[in-house]
């Protein structure tokens, strides 16, 4: 029966991630952005609290926690510094195609080596519209942006499978609109050798759903931080004789931002719970991702707006939140592909529309 209490374990995990974000990420967020990397001390602190292997199978030394744990942790890390959170996660959402399609052998072969090399990164490319061309065991094409400088491994997720690229691709380092602590580059593939390839449409859909939840929860953290920071500011800043939060125009904007964040979180948690409970979750994950990106379109610019001129300046973190929110929303195929996935699934069956899967809400 419905129970929205996360329970002791998830709560402890959340508090651990929150403390780390507040103590390690927030004080250094401009440094990490300038350095395009997190410092060795932050990496060490992250390793110490045991979040590095959150979703890795226990047999491979991980904690083997599920999508709910990932959602809770990512929200907290995203609220601290989303770019740094990516930099600290060598596999990121590239983990999911490896696990869902290749299984543990693929993880051992392609994933684990990255965990042993400081600063190594894998990136996930969602080729939803098949713009990359595979001929035989070679891949060609161009990816305009991934949030990493010179990634070590590229995992391409297609509609019907996934493939792995280990070498032969060119990385062009970019300035990046946001998430600079993670780096940014464009990737060019010119008949790059495919190291491994799997075909399984259902598994690819699951991997895509989990990747969307990963991104959505990270984005949620950015939005929560923006909404809460600007709300606090609005209660301190006085204009026309009272805190600006007490002018109804801003008071209503602040409530709308709060609603956007809370609503997105509920969708993310419900979709993550479905995934964790082995219920169909792919469409719910797509919806959660779309809703979170939609929320970012409101919350990102609004948190700058509330701070006025200060919001535009880099003395405050709101301009960073706005850039990061927009950049994150463009990741992994963006909201459009997810909207199309959820819309097609919805329109495929006759009414009544199930806002819930069979037997669950």
């Amino acid at each position, binding site marked *: 029966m419905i129970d*929205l209490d996360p329970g002791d374990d998830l709560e402890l995990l959340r508090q651990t991630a929150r403390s780390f974000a507040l103590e390690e990420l927030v004080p250094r967020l401009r440094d990490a952005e300038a350095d395009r990397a997190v410092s060795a001390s932050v990496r060490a602190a992250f390793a110490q609290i045991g979040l590095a292997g959150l979703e890795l199978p226990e047999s491979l030394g991980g904690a083997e926690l599920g999508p709910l744990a990932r959602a809770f942790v990512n929200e907290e890390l995203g609220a601290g510094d989303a770019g740094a959170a990516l930099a600290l996660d060598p596999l990121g959402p590239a983990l999911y195609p490896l696990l869902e399609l290749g299984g543990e052998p693929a993880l051992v072969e392609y994933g684990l080596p990255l965990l042993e090399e400081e600063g190594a990164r894998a990136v996930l490319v969602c080729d939803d519209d098949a713009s990359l061309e595979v001929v035989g065991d070679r891949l060609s094409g161009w990816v305009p942006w991934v949030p990493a400088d010179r990634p070590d491994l590229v995992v391409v997720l297609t509609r019907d499978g996934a493939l792995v690229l280990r070498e032969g691709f060119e990385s062009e380092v970019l300035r990046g609109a946001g998430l600079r602590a993670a780096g940014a580059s464009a990737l060019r593939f010119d008949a790059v050798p495919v190291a491994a390839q799997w075909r399984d449409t259902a598994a690819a859909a699951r991997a895509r759903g989990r990747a969307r939840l990963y991104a959505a929860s990270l984005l949620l953290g950015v939005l929560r931080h923006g909404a809460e920071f600007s*709300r606090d500011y609005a209660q301190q800043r006085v204009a026309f004789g009272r805190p600006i*939060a007490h002018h109804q125009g801003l*008071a209503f904007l602040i409530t*709308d931002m*709060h609603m956007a964040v*809370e609503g997105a979180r*509920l969708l993310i948690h419900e979709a993550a719970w479905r995934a964790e409970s082995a219920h169909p979750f792919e469409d719910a994950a797509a919806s959660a991702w779309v809703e979170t990106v939609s929320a970012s379109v409101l919350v990102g610019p609004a948190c700058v707006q509330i701070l006025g001129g200060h919001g535009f300046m880099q003395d405050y973190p709101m301009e960073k939140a706005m850039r990061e929110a927009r950049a994150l929303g463009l990741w992994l195929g963006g909201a459009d592909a997810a909207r199309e996935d959820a819309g097609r699934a*919805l329109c495929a069956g006759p009414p*009544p529309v199930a806002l819930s899967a069979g037997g669950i809400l």
Partner: protein
Amino acid sequence: MDFSIDAKLRDRLEVERAWGRERVRPAGLEADRQGSPLAQDHPYFQDFVARGEGRTRWHGPGSKGEVPPPGVVVRALLVSEELAYWDRGVIVASPGPGLPEPNVLALGTEEQKERFLGPFVALDRPRWACFAMTEPSAGSDAAAICTTARKDGDHWILNGAKCFIGNASRADWILVQATLDPSKGRDAQRSFFVEKGTPGLGGFKIEKKMGLKAYESTSFSLVDCRVPASNLLGGEARYERRAGFKTAMRTFNAGRPVIAANAVGIGRAALDEALAFARNADRLGDPRIRDRIEALARRLRMARLCCLRAGWLADHGKPNIVEASMSKALGATVAEEATSLGMELLGAVGARGDHLIEKLYRDAKAMDIVEGTGQIQRVIMARQLVKLPRS
């Protein structure tokens, strides 16, 4: 964390779904066509009572009502959503002790419970009770009501006017909110039982509404209306503890998620009808249509989850002021969006005025008005989130 429902609730929802399809929606359409509320002797109400509904949770002297099962609010919200899917107006029209019952159970004296809830224990016929707060000049700002109560010996004398009160003309009794002194705001408010036929209670006018026609929204007046001192909810002693206004607002606080759940039900109905129409018209191949249907389903799901969160907090005795207002603001908005999109997909068919979606479009608007408009919900939330002053 768990987002599932148990087998018992699933079964209950199936039963309500069948009842809704077979009885609730036809009754709602009938009322909408005739443009007036269902009559008191309508067979629907007889069958509703025969079904075991419309009874009080109070079971006699010493009883505080049935011990609520775990998750009672969440369960009630989902049942309410399902029934509103079929017709929200008929649900409000249904007999029973209704909106004031929780207040009477929580705050009424034993004598009051026996006297006013007793007839609802074993119903001999459909009976109604109702709660009267809204006035022509005091809607969402419930603290501003002007109906006065003046003590005169062992009676209270009520004077004022109420409006938009559901089921008032057919109610056995009305729990009337009045003030001892309008200049003293909420602390001076009291609740009084006013029984049908009490001299001075009259001027009933059933309003003509845009939608939700199955139930009556009624205006009435209180002119030197004398009620016994024993009709003061909770008795004199209770109000020495300054609980007058909070008594009434307790009902509202619990009510917002219910309205939100009703709105989600209306929105779901509109979505289903719109989807069926679009399929028959072979329009689902258009990605613009699919995108908009997806957006609605997504936002309806989010609105439902917000309702359930507010209800879950209530079930666990946790504060839910922000969540209750959020669910109300969101649910009502999404219901309007759903019915409006439905109308757009219908095109000129929607303008004919004989399609269910057109009725739902009219019905849904009320959900952003009753129990505090969306703007008022934001004011309530802002008081919590940024300490927005009351004045």
